[in-house]
């Protein structure tokens, strides 16, 4: 009698464990960042690079893209994000080329293609810095929901640009999958980037 009761319990516990394991396996890994459900094809970005070639976001397919909007006069928030992406990319070793960091200006008045590329190259020569005219950039800011606002604070740095400081993560198939808010820890950023890097092209 007692043995049968025990067997019942053992069967039940094993059953629950197997079911939980199956659930965990079939559920996709969860992002720490803000996931887009459902993911959307990332709006196209076409801008001239400093060396005169045309950058097209759709041509980055096959790589994971980390996209950030900022400006070169920015001494703190933009460098903080670029420095974290530099470190994550450095840790990837042989897989580093599968992560493309793209930095787009919110300050076309001051950021020239030379200046913005030099700015991002200081963190990692593989980073791409892009700018354009306001007319070229406005539709891109709009498509990504980038808020920007020039404010004159009387700083010797001239006007400052308040700007949304999310990092957008685009998967290998060109889908915008999630955004990371400014202040997300480097461990959480790495966690989410690694999930996307593990995915294969469909």
């Amino acid at each position, binding site marked *: 009698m007692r043995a049968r009761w025990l067997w019942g319990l053992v069967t039940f516990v094993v059953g629950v464990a197997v079911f939980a394991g199956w659930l965990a396996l079939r559920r996709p890994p969860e992002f720490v960042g803000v996931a887009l459900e459902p993911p959307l094809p990332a709006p196209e970005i076409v801008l001239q690079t400093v060396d005169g070639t045309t950058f097209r976001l759709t041509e980055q397919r096959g790589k994971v893209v980390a996209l950030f909007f900022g400006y*070169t*006069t*920015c*001494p*703190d*928030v933009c*460098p*903080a994000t670029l*420095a974290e992406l*530099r470190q994550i990319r450095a840790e990837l070793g042989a897989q580093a080329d599968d992560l493309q960091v793209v930095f787009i200006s919110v300050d076309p008045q001051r950021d020239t293609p030379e200046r913005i590329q*030099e*700015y991002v190259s*200081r*963190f990692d020569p593989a980073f791409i810095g892009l700018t354009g005219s306001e007319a070229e950039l406005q539709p891109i800011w709009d498509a990504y929901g980038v*808020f*920007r*606002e020039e*404010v004159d*604070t*009387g*700083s*010797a*740095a001239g006007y*400052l640009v*308040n*700007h*949304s*400081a999310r990092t957008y993560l685009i998967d290998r198939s060109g889908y915008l999958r999630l955004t990371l808010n*400014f*202040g997300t820890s480097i461990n959480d950023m790495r966690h989410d980037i690694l999930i996307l890097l593990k995915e294969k092209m469909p």
Partner: protein
Amino acid sequence: MKKFVVMLLALALTLAACQPQPAQITVSDPWARPAGEGENSAAFFVIQNGTSQDDAVVRAESDVAAAVEIHLSKMGENGAMQMIRQDKVVVPAGGETVFKPGSYHVMLIGLQRELKEGDTFTLTLYFEKSDPQTLTVPVEQR
């Protein structure tokens, strides 16, 4: 015997607690980001206030930049990051204030020379009450 050990321990702990803190402002772990000539950079550090009065950083100076300002990066209500110039940054009595990325920083505007990793420059912090302190700031990728 046991009582004696306990008493000795209590005495040691009391003495340790009474160890006078140096009544002064100390600035530690300074660093700044690399940036090109004419560009802007930022310097960061930790300020500890060992005195019994609140104090505040009111100004910073360095000959490495055309202008030096104290700013606070913070998230605005609209979700955008903004930098707000600070007239002073308080360091509470017996406490500390950390200048770090995404928060308080000393903005180095219009660098007179390129700051490369491994370079150093001097930065002087002026306080409301305490004497100014001159730091040697290393340029680091962090």
